[in-house]
């Protein structure tokens, strides 16, 4: 691969790592935003249809800012559209949790709440980082994420502490999705490199804050936290579950069929 536009040597390597890190954040927002958009016209009530569409729009907006930045850091002339629509699944760097299917409303809420709580910590950390562009995106995004978290944690408690049926569905969703949570705070080499450079927060420092928040919400929702489980998925390294390919097939259909088409 030719990396002519980027600095050579150690600086160039760091910049490519930086680009990959931003791509991870971008892809998680993009894929989760696409998932939520699948609910449009199908949500249990009109208000929830609007809510999910609005949250989806915020996430896709965050993804656009992040993808543009990742493309600039990469230095190969790929813009937000090229990155969103012309990459295959193994090149996506989102958390495996984000690509899990919508399932019932309980699965959608639990998945969203787990990622909202994660984004709250990540964005707060990025706001304090040395990368001023990323800090500005995070400062903007965290305001929206607080609003999303109020929605998702509100439903978590209402449905968890609701009827027998809603309680059982929420507990099942939590059991199904919990196995994807170790990826949220297990740092790999790239995470460690970014946190050493002062760009990213240290995941080890954020993990207890996320755990405390999630544990408290689960208590309020009268649910039980599942036991820790092994961690075979590495979405942020491009190792995905089978579901991402189907999501991309739909999301990328237009650009794959009519390359370069625009409105």
């Amino acid at each position: 691969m030719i990396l002519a536009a980027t600095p050579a040597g150690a600086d160039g390597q760091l910049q490519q790592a930086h680009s990959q890190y931003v791509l991870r954040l971008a892809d998680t927002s993009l894929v989760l935003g696409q998932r939520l958009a699948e609910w449009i016209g199908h949500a249990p009530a009109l208000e929830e249809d609007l809510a999910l569409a609005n949250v989806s729009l915020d996430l896709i907006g965050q993804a656009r800012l992040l993808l543009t930045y990742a493309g600039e850091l990469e230095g190969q002339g790929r813009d937000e559209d090229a990155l969103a629509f012309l990459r295959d699944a193994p090149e996506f760097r989102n958390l495996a949790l984000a690509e899990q299917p919508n399932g019932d409303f309980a699965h959608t809420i639990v998945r969203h709440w787990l990622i909202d709580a994660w984004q709250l910590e990540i964005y707060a950390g990025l706001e304090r980082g040395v990368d001023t562009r990323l800090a500005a995106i995070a400062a903007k995004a965290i305001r929206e994420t607080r609003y999303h978290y109020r929605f998702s944690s509100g439903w978590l408690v209402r449905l968890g502490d609701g009827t027998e049926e809603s309680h059982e569905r929420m507990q099942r969703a939590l059991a199904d999705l919990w196995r994807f949570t170790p990826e949220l705070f297990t740092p790999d080499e790239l995470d460690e490199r970014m946190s050493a450079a002062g760009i990213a927060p240290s995941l080890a420092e954020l993990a207890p804050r996320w755990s405390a928040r999630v544990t408290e919400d689960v208590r309020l929702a009268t649910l039980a936290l599942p036991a820790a489980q092994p961690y075979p998925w590495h979405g942020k390294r491009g190792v995905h579950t089978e579901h991402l390919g189907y999501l991309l097939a739909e999301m990328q259909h237009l650009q794959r069929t009519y390359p370069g088409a625009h409105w």
Partner: protein
Amino acid sequence: MVGGAADSSAREREVWQLLEGIPDPEIPVLSIVDLGIVRAVRQEADGRLRVAITPTYSGCPATDVIRCQVRAALDARGYADAVLEEVLSPPWTSDWLTSAGREKLRRFGIAPPEEAVSSPRQLRGSPAVSCPRCGSRETERVSEFGSTPCKAHYRCRACAEPFDYFKCL
């Protein structure tokens, strides 16, 4: 150069006025200046004009439309070489709405935010919202999300009218 400085501030004022004439695509009673989207209009030392705008919500589809409208207005006024830049920091919040903008919103039937985004009631998600029609504070939230990214859905218990609330973020 005293004359040069006066010229450039006159030009900046003219451009502010021009931008005040651009309506928000979603809420046309508000100009983009009322919304607090225009961050700066500066005459640079090299003679070029620099205009800085900021997006409201990350995913607001109106942002692209606004950017095109500002560009077109600048071009039409003879500022084709003006630099239009987007700034993110400090992030836009509903606190950037001008007081004139708030009043326009209320008269249009959309309840404006009454408190700063960092007020304790805002942080708990239970702000005081007055009905834009009858002024009653006896209102209730129907949904935290509404027809556009910037609005929530409310209902007045006094006059029974449903209405939009410009949400605080």
